[in-house]
């Protein structure tokens, strides 16, 4: 029981410390919806290659001309996917470390995607005519 109390106090402190970190940006009361913080608008980059590194798509926003094939390469040790939001065309298989995924964009448009395993990883392909 002694160890128990000590462990409890320890974890109380851990919780308190963690609470500070976790809620430093004061966690909004969950009673309210959490709009995802609008990410600083990424500058579009004209390229057809996207690397996946440290759980992020880089660059997150690329522009290509219609007909271009875009290639994603997973440089992390963890698997990722390249998957359209909603009903879009991107649907990569699970990409293990070193795997690449290619997709040819035939029509102009704005294509948002994410990693289904780590949905905070998001990216966009802007296809121009």
């Amino acid at each position, binding site marked *: 029981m002694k160890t128990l109390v000590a462990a409890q106090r320890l974890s109380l402190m851990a919780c308190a410390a963690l609470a500070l970190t976790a809620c430093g940006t004061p966690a909004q009361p969950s009673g309210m919806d959490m709009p995802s913080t609008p990410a600083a608008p990424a500058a579009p980059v004209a390229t057809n290659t996207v690397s996946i590194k440290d759980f992020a798509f880089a660059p997150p926003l690329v522009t290509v001309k219609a007909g271009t094939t875009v290639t994603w390469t997973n440089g992390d040790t963890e698997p990722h996917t390249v998957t359209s939001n909603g009903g879009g065309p991107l649907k990569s298989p*699970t990409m293990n470390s070193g795997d690449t995924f290619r997709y040819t964009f035939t029509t102009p448009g704005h294509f948002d995607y994410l990693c289904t395993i780590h949905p905070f990883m998001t990216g966009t392909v802007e296809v121009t005519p």
Partner: protein
Amino acid sequence: MNEPDPDGMTRRQLLRHTAWFGAAVVLTVAAGEVISHIHTPDAPVPDDPNALRFVQVSDSHIGFTGAANTAVTDSFHRAVDQVNALPYRPDFVIHTGDLTHLSTPAQFDQVRQMMGGIRAGGLFTVPGEHDSVDDAGQKYRAAFGKGSTGDGWYSFDLKGAHFIALVNTLNLEKLGHLGVDQVEFVRKDVAGLSSDTPIVVFSHIPLFAMYPQWGWGTDDAGQVLNLLRRFASVTCLNGHVHQLFTKTEGNVTFHSATTTAYPLPKPGTAPAPAPVTLPAGQLADALGIREVTYRQGPQPLAVKDVRLA
């Protein structure tokens, strides 16, 4: 949700076992808050036969092969053994998701078989995002979705408490998401309940904003929590973050569980929530299972986090 053994209880049977209440609070309640803590497995356990007692396991990630835990199957086996070695038979065991690492048929088959070795009155699951990597949860529901509705959600009553199992790992964008159908399900589900019914909510991703930058929150959780406002005691148990964390907001207490597979960094302490490889010998300290006890009365559920033996 499938029967763990021939005499395991199905959800329908559980519904019939609502006649009596349980006993025994294991934990101190400090300032209205139940503190999760790791304790030694041989610490005393309550042995009131009327207590409602269940176990939460989470994030087994069967199929993970990284350096952070090169033997996740062994770890989950130990968790199952630990549940089976408890001095009581839990009313049920809930796995709060990321059963598999990559949703392959072989991984689902393996974790299903391993879950089948659990001795408990019932067996429940909610899916993690790792369980719907490439098919919006179809393989998950084929393996574990029996008796659920919608994308895999359900509820049940046991020993005076009402349990709601939610799916917030589909239709994601940055954060967990429940969707209007599920909110509607909860609205109807709790409509007839008296406000002193203790509510327990299971989800994979936290229903509170634990660290939204890493997706550790649910964008429309507020809609469900608003529906639960009138209840005296609401306990939300989640996985996903692979570490213990407890937080109380009004009538709701949130408890993030640890994992049986590998730790993740504390919020904001690393560039990304990538698996953490601990120094040799320290992994077991980061892994564990959770025992939850409830007895009738005004006190909240007692939550006890136990290190993996």
